[in-house]
């Protein structure tokens, strides 16, 4: 099982270590540092590194490496999933997961890590339960604690841990009962030079914020459940019911949680909401190159495409660019060669464009690689897959809750090759 955990910052210092079994010397991280040196980019450090006596499994989040040390055969995914859970928990507790936040809350961090693993076995990883055991630090609570002498640690046995619905604490009470669901879809796509789609898929999630008194039993049904053939559920969802009736039936955890994530990969279901016209050329023997980029909406069901940001890694030979955006602003970093254009909203009447020239190193030959254009955007009030919630019903409690549902589409890894 998991032996130890080291947190390493971007400058390569170990700033926290925690051992669940016997102490493993810090020097084991030297193997990690070697791998880190070999990697060209921070994210290229391999996630599993063997050393003579241990294995190091690491994830990089918020520019901190979480390095777990294991000694025997342990499923690596188990370790990685657990590390993600640690990151999520820190973020949940401290708002951000940064070196400063962790150092500021080092005792809470220790208490948390101690609760999350026992002898390397996961103990309590549900944020609901952890929060009952260890209260998250807030400014108010710190002040109150200092004055009254009360503590951060819950006195009660986390009852939820033993019930049949371990994800929900008992005795929940709200004056305003509300249940909100966000359907968020990210579209990952690779578009080739000619504008045709090479791959496109949708990663969707339904995040919920449920604040309901007592033990509500919810059912959520969809207009078009057939879209969802590849789904991962929160443990609260009754799988049998889904298999039989395609209805989500569940007793929700209290607060924020991810009800479901899904994946739509069949290409004809994935609409591409924007198109790009581009002309990026270098002439042989000339130190100038041409750059033209125009974006336009496509298959958006009349919704506006907003917060559009275009990034492109230009070839190394490019010294500088001189471009003229029809809207928004652009920046070019001559060191990293990253071109970034923040153009805001796409107006279908007047399509945004970015045109101008690139100057190349004098005498350098024409760059061989073609820059890839990376696009980020958001579309409110629409799920690009067409997924629609039909209705939400509540059983088991008498009151009438407020219900709400929001849709949003975002670009995930949306790449256009040139």
């Amino acid at each position, binding site marked *: *099982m998991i032996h130890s955990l080291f947190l390493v910052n971007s400058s390569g210092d170990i700033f926290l270590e925690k051992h669940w079994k016997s102490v493993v010397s810090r020097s084991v991280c030297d193997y990690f540092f070697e791998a880190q040196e070999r990697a*060209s980019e921070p994210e290229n450090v391999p996630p599993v590194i063997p050393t003579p*006596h241990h294995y190091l499994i690491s994830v990089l989040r918020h520019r901190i490496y979480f390095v777990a040390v294991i000694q*025997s055969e342990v499923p690596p995914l188990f370790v990685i999933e657990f590390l993600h859970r640690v990151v999520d928990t820190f973020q949940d507790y401290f708002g951000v997961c940064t070196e400063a936040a962790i150092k500021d809350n080092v005792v809470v961090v220790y208490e948390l890590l101690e609760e999350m693993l026992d002898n390397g076995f996961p103990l309590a990883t549900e944020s609901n339960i952890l929060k009952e055991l260890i209260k998250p630090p807030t400014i108010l609570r710190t002040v109150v604690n200092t004055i009254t002498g009360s*503590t951060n640690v819950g006195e009660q046995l986390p009852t939820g841990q033993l019930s049949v619905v371990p994800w929900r604490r008992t005795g929940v009470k709200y004056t305003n009962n509300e249940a909100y669901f966000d359907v968020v879809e990210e579209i*990952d796509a690779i578009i080739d030079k000619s504008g045709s789609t090479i791959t496109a898929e949708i990663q969707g999630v339904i995040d919920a914020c449920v604040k309901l008194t007592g033990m509500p039993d919810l059912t959520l049904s969809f207009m078009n459940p057939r879209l969802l053939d*590849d789904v991962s559920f929160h443990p609260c969802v009754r799988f049998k019911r889904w298999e039989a009736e395609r209805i989500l039936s569940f007793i929700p955890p209290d607060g924020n949680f991810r009800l479901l994530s899904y994946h739509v*990969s069949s290409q004809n279901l994935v609409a591409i909401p924007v198109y790009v016209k581009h002309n990026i050329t270098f002439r042989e023997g000339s130190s100038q190159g041409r750059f033209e980029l125009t974006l336009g909406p496509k298959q958006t069901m009349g919704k506006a495409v907003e917060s559009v940001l275009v990034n492109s890694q230009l070839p*190394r030979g490019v010294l500088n660019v001189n471009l003229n955006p029809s809207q928004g602003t652009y920046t070019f970093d001559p060191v990293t060669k990253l071109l970034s254009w923040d153009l805001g909203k796409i107006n279908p009447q007047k399509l945004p464009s970015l045109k101008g020239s690139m100057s190349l190193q004098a005498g350098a030959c024409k760059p061989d690689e073609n820059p890839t254009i990376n696009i980020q955007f958001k579309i409110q009030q629409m799920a690009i897959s067409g997924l629609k919630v039909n209705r939400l019903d509540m059983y088991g409690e008498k009151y009438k809750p407020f219900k709400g549902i929001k849709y949003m589409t975002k670009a995930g890894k949306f790449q256009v090759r040139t």
Partner: protein
Amino acid sequence: MTDSKYFTTTKKGEIFELKAELNSDKKEKKKEAVKKVIASMTVGKDVSALFPDVVNCMQTDNLELKKLVYLYLMNYAKSQPDMAIMAVNTFVKDCEDPNPLIRALAVRTMGCIRVDKITEYLCEPLRKCLKDEDPYVRKTAAVCVAKLHDINAQLVEDQGFLDTLKDLISDSNPMVVANAVAALSEIAESHPNSNLLDLNPQTINKLLTALNECTEWGQIFILDCLANYMPRDDRESQSICERVTPRLSHANSAVVLSAVKVLMKFMEMLPKDLDYYGTLLKKLAPPLVTLLSAEPELQYVALRNINLIVQKRPEILKHEMKVFFVKYNDPIYVKLEKLDIMIRLASQANIAQVLAELKEYATEVDVDFVRKAVRAIGRCAIKVEQSAERCVSTLLDLIQTKVNYVVQEAIVVIKDIFRKYPNKYESVIATLCENLDSLDEPEARAAMIWIVGEYAERIDNADELLESFLEGFHDESTQVQLQLLTAIVKLFLKKPTETQELVQQVLSLATQDSDNPDLRDRGYIYWRLLSTDPVAAKEVVLAEKPLISEETDLIEPTLLEELICHIGTLASVYHKPPSAFVEGSRGVQHKRLPPRSGSGESTESPEVGQPGGTGPEATPAVIPSQSDLLGDLLNLDLGPPASGSVPAPTSGMQMGAVDLLGSGLDTLVGGPTVNMGAGFAGAPAVMPASLNAPVGGGLGDLFDLGSSMGMTTGAYVAPKSVWLPAMKAKGLEISGTFSRRAGVIQMELSLTNKAMSIMTDFAIQFNRNSFGLAPAGPLQVLTPLSPNQTIEVSLPLNNVGPVMKMEPLNNLQVAVKNNIDVFYFSCQYPISILFVEDGKMERQVFLATWKDITGENEAQFQIKDCHINSDAASNKLQSSNMFTIAKRIVDGQDMLYQSMKLSNGIWVLAELRLQAGSPNYTLSLKCRAPEVSQYVFQYYETVLKN
């Protein structure tokens, strides 16, 4: 205010100050002080001097304070064992606390204090907690047993905690079950042969029930444990699969992958024509695809496993090619893995798409990735014949880009394409020659030189080209030098008139001016060959080359099967068996896929799936089991190799033959040197005497043999011997032997009644045995056996019975019942009855496997006084399903390369050396389970002498 304030005090006397605060009356001050102590501890300051003061704070009803003190204790108890005793009382008291949270915390913390004196006191509270009414306490205690076992294994066994832990598998609370399984799995890792997790249908059922209700982590433990179970039949296997399938929709990717492992393993047992089999295949694809949209670290592990799955069952993901397309901001380790899988999935249907993608990748920035992409194009050409033309034109396009490393990689792969499809694409040679100057890497230079030499007759200025390389001969790497030598000799044989000077120059460079023995040797060989008999030289050097194999980097099948059983583990990430690298696994457990039952391809008897359960699994074993060892043959401890083993043969022939296939280029080199034995007669005087040994040769005749085996006569069957004398069995005498006929193992029995009364109601059962042999039907003795009558019975056997390692391995304990009594006897079966009909390995696989199995797993034996020639031996062995893959004659010795496969999937590879005129044969056996070697040898001896 944050915790960082605890770090700020750096005044002198800090310890003193803390001491005062710890002893303060005010609770709040105490707690702040402990927090300061903990904070100092986390940054590595030594605060052990405060031990007594901190321990004094332990007796508190404040939970946070208690926890902090516990944190401190865990850290320092080891360094201050005597002081730690002070804490014991509080622990023991806390274990009786009415609050289950406190009880659990106390027992959990005690387990973390690795001090012998404390562990002694831990036993009683732990025993109580294991039986606590509160499941939270029980599940904590379960883990504590594992902790204690880590500190003092003997104590845990003596105190009977293991049994209590086993009982917890049947606990009513799913979390307790999960933790018990986790603890047992961890303990079992250090006791590979103990049957801690004795899985039977009842426990399996309990685990499956708990699976639905426990936490995600618990599900991982349970699924991993389930994967070790061997279902009795396909129906049980299907029902487990059905109950595991919902886990594929879990949000935790580790759960998903563990579920995939269970399904991949149990699927093996399902008949392929079953509807459910198809359904299951379809269900496996989406979760695997979903794993690829997760974080890159998860993707990497998933991809490594998908790589295995694709090799085992390509049909699962054959329509999902697109998800493996590379995104430009994927980390490099993800990119390379995706590329590898793309090639594995490439087929005629999707090749166009794949090629377009690969071409795109070849213009990326990352050099390593670009190189691999170019190589991938070549691999596609070799794999999918229809695409070869398109691949070649794509490669030519890439060569036109003139990007140096792209051109070099392209040339290396085009050479392979020439090898695979001779006389098809040679028109591109002109284009290749244009790029001669830009090649600076040895591999690319060597490839280009090979092309020039091979097609010298089509290249007008081949001599000039080669000559230009010759100028800097001594600065080239060995690879290039060897290639240049061969190429020039080829050129000379093709255009002898113009190139005599050139060939002399290169031969003298190679033989006189070089320090490299390989180069010198090869130079001498050519020299002598050319000077003795140019016609023979032509035949040898310009001989037709064997085609190169399609996929060179497939994982060898036995290893693949083992890795499939280890999906989701480190082994699957490294594609190595766990025994190869996991430290601390003190015994190695080889896992294997269960045999498929019911379908035609298997070797089990047809009765297998039949209802009614006449097999031994339906009724309890007659013989009380003598040992409760679980281990099937593959669970064996592969410790020291068999005592008779010797290091791998150094004959060089073998090594040469293996290497020949190992790398494309060397093959070329090996080709020309075949059959050169005769040419030695007029050797130059400088020829080193050692020359006749290291020649790689023999490829041709090594491989020509396989199919030439005649049809076989019946396999050798040993005469019957008496197994159960009449004295011991109240007048019943049993003698018998074993045979294998048409894929079915038969136990031939003669039952003789030497008593005075009639015998009836015969029945037979086997005890668990190494290979799971079991009667496939009842013992057919229909008429009563009257006194002095003998009856011959043939009992078909299958090998789906329960497995347990026996000593000796081929021992079989049998119980026979009649109207008088039950009799026990044991007999030994020849291992050959387990050799299955499809035990003939592909040559390439054979070579790869032979190379892959290390020397420790090799055993060598002498067979004495044997008078039989190699063909007869080969025929004889073939009738026992011992197949000759290849035959070679070296130095007057006949070498037979043979393979056989045991019914449980173990492959045994053999090399039999027969010296003409000498009655002594040498047998080398390689096998991943070296225990069987001895028995295989015994059988060889029996067959060859009879």
